[in-house]
């Protein structure tokens, strides 16, 4: 069992949980993920490691309430225990030798983009970061990003905070300014990553994306997380989750991500009803 050391609401739909998992904390690297089951009848869901503290032996996860499983996870409080917490899974993000990078984070994807930003910054890399949210209320990790970046841009869809516009607007500006990046790292909704890749392709800048498809075991067994990358079948859990964004078939990934939408909608409604009844 894995005890929840602390839990914090980052915005109305995103929570942060610090979990006691010393063995995982010892090995975790930015870009890797864990599989969590909150109770012994829960689904296995992959969540990216958003931070870790080797000395304290803790792993931090940040998750958005999107379906039944994350809603169930969110019912747990500080001091409660998670039934299963497995990791660190996937390959760590590659940061070695990078001198100048643009990190693009969208929504809750910022939770994954942040540890990479931090690591790059710590190794002396020049980091330009662009984060985007739908509106002011949903902004997370602003201070953290600011601290770890040489240049920082906040974008909101409705202009309620930072600059009105999409992350690609700011990225395009940086690229036309003449910035040359060793890499652009984009983490966020599939549609955002797709458009970041279309933007960087024009400038011929290598772009890494972090994929988060449907997964069960997360250890290279079920094949549910398969993606088409450069015309080949790849498995996000063991070959990724980071891939060359210019090679990823995003349209296929988006379609596959919709596989259980009806089921999820149904569980979400059932859970909401249950929670209302309990209140």
């Amino acid at each position, binding site marked *: 069992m894995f005890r929840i050391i602390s839990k914090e609401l980052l915005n109305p739909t995103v929570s942060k949980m610090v979990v006691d998992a010393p*063995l*995982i904390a010892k*090995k975790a690297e930015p870009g890797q993920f864990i599989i969590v*089951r909150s109770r012994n*009848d*829960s*689904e*296995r869901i992959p969540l990216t490691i958003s931070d870790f503290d080797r000395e304290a032996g803790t792993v931090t996860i940040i998750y958005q309430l999107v379906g*039944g*499983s994350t809603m*169930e996870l969110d019912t747990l409080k500080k001091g409660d225990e998670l*039934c*299963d*917490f*497995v*990791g*660190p*899974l996937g390959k760590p993000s590659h940061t070695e030798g990078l001198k100048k990078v643009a990190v693009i984070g969208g929504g809750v994807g910022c939770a994954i983009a942040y540890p990479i930003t931090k690591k790059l910054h710590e190794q002396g890399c020049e980091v330009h970061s662009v984060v985007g949210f739908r509106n002011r209320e949903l902004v997370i990790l602003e201070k953290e990003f600011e601290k770890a970046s040489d240049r920082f841009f906040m974008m909101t869809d409705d202009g309620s905070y930072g600059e009105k516009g999409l992350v690609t607007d700011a990225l395009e500006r940086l690229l036309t300014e003449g910035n040359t990046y060793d890499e652009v790292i984009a983490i966020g909704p599939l549609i955002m990553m797709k458009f970041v890749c279309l933007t960087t392709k024009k400038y011929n800048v290598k772009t890494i994306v972090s994929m988060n498809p449907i997964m*069960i*075991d997360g*250890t*290279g*067994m*079920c*094949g*549910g997380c*398969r993606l*088409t990358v450069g015309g080949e*079948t790849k*498995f996000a859990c*063991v070959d990724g989750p980071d891939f060359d964004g210019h090679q990823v*078939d995003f349209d*296929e990934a988006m*379609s*596959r991500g*919709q*596989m*259980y939408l009806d*089921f*999820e909608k149904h*569980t979400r409604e059932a859970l909401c009803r249950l929670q209302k009844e309990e209140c």
Partner: protein
Amino acid sequence: MSDRNMDLHKCPMPVQDADARNKNFEEVALGYTYDMAVNEAKRCLNCKKKPCVSACPVNIDIPAFIECIASEKPENAYDILSEQTSLAAVCGRVCPQESQCEGKCVRGIKGEPVGIGRLERFAADYHAEHNKNPQKKPKYNGHKAAIIGAGPSGLTAAGDLAKKGYQVTVYEALHLPGGVLVYGIPEFRLPKAIVQREIENLKEIGVEIVTNMVIGKILTIDELFEMGNEAIFIGSGAGLPRFMNIPGESLKGVYSANEFLTRINLMKAYQEDSKTPIQKAKRVAVVGGGNVAMDAARCAKRLGAEEVFIVYRRSMNELPARKEEVEHAEEEGIVFKTLHNPTEIHGDENGNVSGMTCVRMELGEPDAGGRRRPIVIENSEFRIDLDCVIMAIGTSPNPLIRTTTPGLEANQHGCLIVKEETGETSRKNVYAGGDAVTGAATVILAMGAGKTAADAIDKALS
């Protein structure tokens, strides 16, 4: 013994009615009653040559255990089984007996062989029902070993080493131990309570099982040695599912058999209140002809599919599945489209599976493996309407350990290379067995490998 039963046929196995069972997940074969078992046991001639034993991957003294049942001492039968297997209740249910012990039985020359598998199952179930004495924990011999993977090979190695006095820790990546016995083989063929029972037996003799531990990620092989383990057995099992590389395999509604079965078996997606979703398809094609394909097809039927096809490129005679599974599948209404091969999966405007194009095949000359090679019949394409396709065409071994352990050699397919007689890998004191070495194979072969390695470890360390 004078009262041999010379009936040419096996005592039939009581089963759930086909039309009832293809709608539920309860066990299909109900098991022999006491009288049926004694009667069937009397069909064994207890012949001197014991050809059955030579065909058993774990060398069970088959005539001896059967003789105990015939003479109505079923508890002794279990003791004899236990000398060679920690998982008798499992083997009795899932071994391909027709190509092993029963395939060599002299009674099979004229008539049916002795129902060895059924008798093994009977002895194990009888023991579970009647014996309430906890097993004695063997005396600690001062040696420590680690096992990676709580599937058939790992559990066998763990059991054998624990019986010899080793302190054994089994590391399992999933949240439940059992490996393919829990995530792959369905409840109706191997009830999970039985797997649980066998695992409890191992715990009783001191085997420690730690779940949620992905070795290669959370701990490396080298760290397991630093923790005081003197030998390590890798039984990490089957890995990534294979696909055919035909158009349409990424459509919604195309599953690997691993995913489909894991959702159903490990995550209980067939139960009404399960939180893990599964597609309730109406027309399903399962591509492949092995046990995994039969399991997937029969699961799809039980989830309410109106038509389920097995699409296999060779003929009925070449199906690699256990004979009993093929028979059960046919009885349950699974349609066998043998000598067929898919060439493309079609989707609708929303990216959901809508059909599959197949070609017809004929059998040509035997290939290197001795099986007749399937050849495409020109212009034989036709389309089947479907809403789900399940690929059950095999797996490649799990990559996590070989990619994180320096000095561990694997072949071009990713299978770990071991010395056949010991199971030792290219790393000293690191042994391996099961699907991690052979690629997708059977439970009993994996168990045999676990057993070989346990013996070799014991020899090397004592």
